[in-house]
């Protein structure tokens, strides 16, 4: 079992979710986050006062999958989260973490069975 944590552009969420669904990956947690990577921030101006925005809005996906789904999920996210044409700095990152255990609260099931859709 792995936990896939992906940081993506907010505007790509729809496409990523679609791509994951096509690979039978449905269950995910989506969070609004802010972060900074190699993509530098931007400047806003309010009544003459310049504001430097260094932390940019991103979406964080957390997806727990069984080993068979890891590659499919990573591949789906990579393809769908890229900016069209060439990709851009700021497209995001995917982290794959080992997942110790998983418990479905309703039934008490443990392990890979508890992950499924």
């Amino acid at each position, binding site marked *: 079992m792995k936990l896939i944590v992906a940081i993506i552009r*907010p*505007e790509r*969420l*729809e496409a990523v*979710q*679609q791509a994951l*669904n*096509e*690979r*039978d*990956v*449905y*269950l995910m947690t*989506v*969070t*609004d986050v802010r972060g900074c990577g190699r993509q530098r921030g931007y400047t*806003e*101006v*309010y*009544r*003459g*006062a310049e*504001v430097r*925005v260094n932390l940019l*809005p991103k*979406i964080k996906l957390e997806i727990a999958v*069984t080993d*068979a*789904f890891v590659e*499919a*999920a*990573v*591949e789906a996210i*990579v*393809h769908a989260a890229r*900016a069209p*044409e*060439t*990709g*851009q*700095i700021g497209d995001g990152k995917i982290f794959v973490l080992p997942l110790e255990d998983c418990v479905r609260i309703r039934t008490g099931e443990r392990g890979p069975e508890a992950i*499924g*859709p």
Partner: protein
Amino acid sequence: MRQRILPFLLALVVGLGLLTSASAEEPMPAEPPTAAPPAIDAGNTAWMLISTGLVMLMVPGLALFYGGMVRQKNVLGTMMHSMVALSIVGLQWVLFGYSLSFGTKDSSGWIGWDWGYVGLSGVAPNAAFPGTSIPIFVHCMFQGMFAIITPALISGALAERIKFGPYCLFVFLWVTVIYCPLAHWVWALDSTASAAGWLGKMGALDFAGGTVVHIAAGVSGLAAILLLRKRTGYPQQTVIPNSLVLTLTGAGLLWFGWFGFNGGSALAANGLAGAALAATQVAAAAAGLSWILAEWLHRGRPTALGLASGIVAGLVAVTPAAGFVTPLSAIIIGALAGVVCYAAVSLKPFLKYDDSLDAFGVHGVGGLLGALLTGVFASAALWQAGAGSTASLGALGEAGTDYAAQIMAQIYAAGVSIVFAFVGTAVLVVLIDKTVGFCLDPIDETEGLDLTQHGEVGFDLGYAAETVSETPHAAPRPASRPPNGHVKRFTVVLDGATPADLMRVWSDLCQAGPTPPSVEFQAVYPYVTTVQGNRFRFRGGDPVAMSANLLRLFGDRLGGKTLRASVEEARP
């Protein structure tokens, strides 16, 4: 918190109770009016009823205007500052504020009083306000809206750092001891419809409240922020407006309501109202434009907040002038207001005071500019034709050309307003700060007004919510293997260059540049999944073509190195 506010509420209720009982003991005017009551004109009254509603709408307009400019955690608290004035001053005005401002029967020139105006208990619905053909009821309600919006304007200077209870107390006291006397000095009329207040007698011109409303509010805001602490983190942390959508909407509502604010200040549906309305429209238009043009030249971009601020600055500046100036003069007043107020708020970072939403920069500076320019541009001929009067205007004299005297009168009235509002507000603020504390606890300030003062949140919208599709996604179904379709997976291994070189080239390729990507890259990129060392993993595409394209892409960029590609099929 509650324990500290209760005594004040009790004092307020007891005070009001004493006042109403005092008025009840006072004998009502028993003798019937000797002359027939002045006639009420239906057209004039209809316009003033509408104007009252228009000015009332400025209060929610102001709530939106200010509410959009603060941080998300303070949006409700800031809007409440405007809206609660409708309730507090709405009652104060009818109970005794109107009497303090416009009562002339039982008072001398320094402060108004008329027992019949207390609770409007001695006023017949068909009694007309002196010099007009509108009912006193309507005049009271119309003027009440001005008294409501003025302290609400001050809240813009104090936004994001004050406690709600002390603010309510401040609004009540400020209107009572500062607004009411000022309004009396400038606007009060005796029973023969001539000016009763000492500033009005001097000939200072203030059509719709440049001195009483805007200078007073702006300067009071400045006094308060100079005495109170800055917002925590200011100016190291900059505050980003939560929604300029609200601010622009609010500016639009303010503009709309201002037609009543200025047009209604003619107190009749006549040519004067029309002239005031026209001046209001063009001044707002000119100021909005001149602000964003100044910004465009200075900063490179015209902003939405700039347009909203410019509109308000122009409306403020034309307020004392509307009805006295021609549309062309109003355009000049508006255009100047946009630029001058832009300069004023741009100077704020250098002056180091924390005027949260620029109440002083827009209302104080714009009001002062408007008051002075009224003296420069006032046209006696325009006013006389509009009002149907032959009287001389202000201090302009019989010929209507004594501009030096008029400008001096304007400066004097503005100066009186500045000194009175500044000193009076300073005393009130210190009084409130020393007794109950005006500013929020810094921890509460960090958490935000909405939660700590009201226990609510204004809105809770994340950007994830913006991308939720209307049609639901496919229903989940159990699967033990991911469906791969019939897409071929394979890995292309490149030999002959170090992985570091390969990665550097690949990273450069995967980045938008001034020129469109090469044909080879466009052929490869959509199929690449991940890259590890010298192993390029593909999903779909023709292995032979992909290998050839990769060799060409890297061969060109690694200058002379011989590369070899081999294809590994993915494990089933």
